[in-house]
């Protein structure tokens, strides 16, 4: 070992130490900012739950009272009895389930056609599909309503469910699955083709089983969309018996008084299933977002 690299090392050492120190300081700063802003982000959740556990006297008070005196669980029991809460929840689950079922059957079929079968005109059709994503909902809203009105299906779940199966939103899921299918090695499907397997068989026996994670992502996002959808049910569902939670929540709001305790309790129950779902399949959410964003 000669002297020169050692002296270079010696010169580099303080510089890298300084860099490490400034790196540590930057990380500490990042933590500080992320934590502070993060607390602001958590605050609405805390306020949601705390309000749901307070009496009216504790809710309408200046300055604000943070913690409830005695925990008011009855806000929850009152909330689910003040409106047909479980009927609305059942309706919401039913619509969401139908939407998910159709989309996870239809979207992968189409995505397979757009990724694994090389037919004439495929790319052109694919670009048409992508461009439909720019079509504002409002342009098709009225004719689709008129169409369902003519066949007497308004005030039923069909317009909502069929729109999710065949409407503009589907393109988003087809795109997501197509990106996933393109990642499946060509050799895998080609060798099956040479062995004489039909496309349907390759699809069902090779591609679909490999795509469970992507299908889960698609199902999840469809569910989320249907669970929180407001405009669809607002337009189509007149009969209060058929309302979903998004529509039903307004019943806690009366002419000049809002039952905030009950409303926050009802909102908490409305949100909880999704938050629980998130903690079970966190990775799927993040993947779903990044796949569509990046490619």
């Amino acid at each position, binding site marked *: 070992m000669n002297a020169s690299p050692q002296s270079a090392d010696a010169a580099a050492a303080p510089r890298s130490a300084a860099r490490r120190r400034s790196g540590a300081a930057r*990380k500490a700063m*990042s933590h500080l900012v992320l934590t502070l802003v993060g607390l602001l982000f958590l605050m609405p959740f805390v306020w949601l739950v705390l309000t749901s556990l307070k009496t009216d006297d504790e809710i309408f008070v200046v300055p604000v009272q943070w913690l409830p005196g005695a925990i008011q669980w009855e806000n929850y029991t009152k909330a689910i009895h003040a409106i047909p809460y479980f009927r609305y929840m059942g309706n919401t689950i039913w619509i969401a389930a139908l939407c998910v079922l159709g989309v996870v059957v239809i979207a992968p079929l189409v995505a397979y056609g757009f990724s694994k079968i090389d037919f004439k005109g495929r790319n052109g059709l694919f670009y048409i599909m992508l461009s439909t994503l720019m079509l504002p909902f409002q342009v098709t809203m009225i004719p689709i309503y008129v169409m369902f009105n003519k066949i007497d299906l308004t005030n039923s779940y069909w317009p909502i469910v069929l729109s999710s199966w065949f409407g503009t939103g589907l393109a988003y899921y087809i795109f997501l699955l197509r990106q996933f299918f393109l990642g499946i090695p060509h050799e895998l499907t080609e060798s099956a083709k040479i062995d004489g397997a039909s496309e349907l068989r390759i699809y069902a026996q090779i591609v679909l089983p490999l795509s469970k994670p992507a299908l889960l992502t698609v199902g999840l996002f469809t569910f989320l969309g249907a669970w929180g959808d407001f405009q669809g049910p607002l337009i189509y569902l007149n009969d209060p018996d058929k309302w979903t939670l998004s529509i039903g929540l307004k019943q806690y709001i009366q002419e000049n008084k809002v039952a905030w305790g009950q409303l926050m309790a009802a909102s908490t129950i409305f949100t909880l299933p999704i938050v629980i779902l998130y903690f079970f399949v966190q990775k799927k959410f993040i993947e779903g977002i990044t796949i569509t964003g990046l490619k």
Partner: protein
Amino acid sequence: MNAGNQIGIRRRERKRLLVGLLFISPWLAGLLLFQLYPILSSFYYSLTEYSLFTPPEWVGAANYKELFDDPKVWLSLYNTLFMTIFGLFPHLAFALAIALLLNRNVKGQSIYRTIYFLPTLVPIVAATLLWMWLLNAQYGLINELAGRIGLPQPNWLLDPKWTKPALVLMGFWGTGTATIMYLAALQEVPRMYYEAAEIDGANAWQKFRQITLPAISPMTLFQVIMGIIGTLQLFTQGYVFAEGNGQAIGGPENSLLFYGVYLYQTAFSFLRMGYASAMAWLLFAVVFALTILVFKTSAKWVYYGGDR
């Protein structure tokens, strides 16, 4: 190559076409029934007076002429573009800032990510109602905190000057999706770019300005386009804000009358399907024009890496 072979190839091609079309047929059916047909009939309705109960009555371009004389159309367009300009861009800048911090490989990244993403999971109606409570002028948490640090305590929900800023404020809470997308884009930026810049003595700002921003510009383009399309269709927040206040559609002095809200009202409260269809076409034109504008300018600020 002999003729028989060529016929074989053509037959195989035809078969592939058939099978391919079969696979995508559900989408094709959707395209026809839920997009093409509605687009065409929307255009037809826009040239008629149509109340749903009587057949459409041809009025020519009358609806389009009315659009230009309808102050509510322009007001709602203004309200909507206000949200696009003062909502979308600050929200994206904020999402990028958080993503940059997360990208410093801080410990507990996944916990932070969860915290910032969680609000996007709250059903939009529940989120809007919760924010109305947070923004309540008298008993709301936000005005309480604002008062403590000496900020103004506006009447967010009833003062027409403050209703849209209230929605912008609420929008920051829903930026988690944009943050996740930006974080993913940041993680794709090759480390060697930064290393090379460091050797040249670039400081943090220069690295951000010269490397990070150009490298993630395709993601910014994507978010701006989707954001424009999204905000121009803004509906639920504006509708719920007014309704939750026990007010008529549009809220205080129509300050929450967004284009989507006015269009909904025209169609389903006033039952003027023809006029609402004309409104939809104006919206389409605005979406289209803005998208093209962004794409046109994007040549100047979007950079694609060598492999694209």
